């Protein structure tokens, strides 16, 4: 497990950090953070733990204010704490 995990994290570091990349590859890599993060976040809001596609109200209603807060305030700590607080509160309501 350690070896195969290491492989996918290490290999591109070495191969790509040592050569000049074509412009289009650079553009593509520039979009990877947005794309990867979005692909991690959306399924959390719309899939349950067993992998079924359903709305996750507790996650959704906590995610929206965090999204707006992060947009306006740009604070990582604040967003995490606010999200946990709202999620916790929603646990009593929903």
């Amino acid at each position: 497990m350690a070896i195969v995990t290491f492989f996918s994290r290490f290999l591109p570091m070495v191969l790509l950090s040592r050569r000049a990349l074509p412009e289009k590859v650079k553009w593509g890599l520039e979009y990877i953070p947005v794309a990867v993060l979005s692909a991690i976040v959306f399924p959390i809001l719309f899939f349950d733990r067993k992998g079924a596609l359903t709305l996750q109200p507790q996650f959704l209603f906590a995610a929206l204010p965090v999204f707006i807060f992060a947009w306006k305030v740009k604070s990582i700590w604040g967003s995490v704490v606010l999200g946990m607080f709202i999620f916790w509160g929603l646990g009593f309501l929903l």
Partner: protein
Amino acid sequence: MGSHPWREGAKAAAPIVLGYLPVGVAFGVLARRAGLAPSEAGLMSFLVYAGSSQFIAVELISEGITWFPIVVTTFFVNLRHLLMSSTVSLYLKKEPLRILTLVGAQLTDESFAVAMSQPSKIQNRSRYLFGLQVTSHCAWIGGSVGGAVFGSLIDHEGYGLPFALPGLFICLLVLQIKSLRHVWLMIVAGLLSLFFKWLVPGNWYIVMAALLTSGIGVALRTRKTGHRESEGSV
């Protein structure tokens, strides 16, 4: 006194620590339940250091499945790091091999996201990345061992803790949005990830959605630049 990239990185890891501790504890609890000793849970967290595949491994171990399927699953679950590692490598052009080895070994979804929220901080500053990643790794190992030892005493589902990492990811996603095109790509990637997760079993949806979205982004940009060039030439 210069700046301390190491300490700066360690501080930037704080939200990750908040997320890793409860998830690490959850892992420790499950590992214990699957029959692993606290030392084994800790060792796995030290060597493998990959949340979702460790959870899968523990699940498979408790079902009595042997090592080979676990290793294959781990490989595919963590292939998404190929993309992240490629992106980070752009900022570490001049680093020696041993540095890249260490930094690469500790790359996770969370450390990648925090690092990319301020790319200027990692530009040829591997020590900042070290501070960030070593701190996160310690939280993960500490949580795992703590969970394996004291598991039943800790409520790792309470106090909004299940939302610690989702909250972190949402904020880091927002911080990545720097133009209207990023907003569109976020929506495209989100919808594609839902579609692929629904369509394909396993963790493929992240790689598939991210690659396709990034490809769409490049195609749009190519077309736009192409237009501008032809306008210029006319």
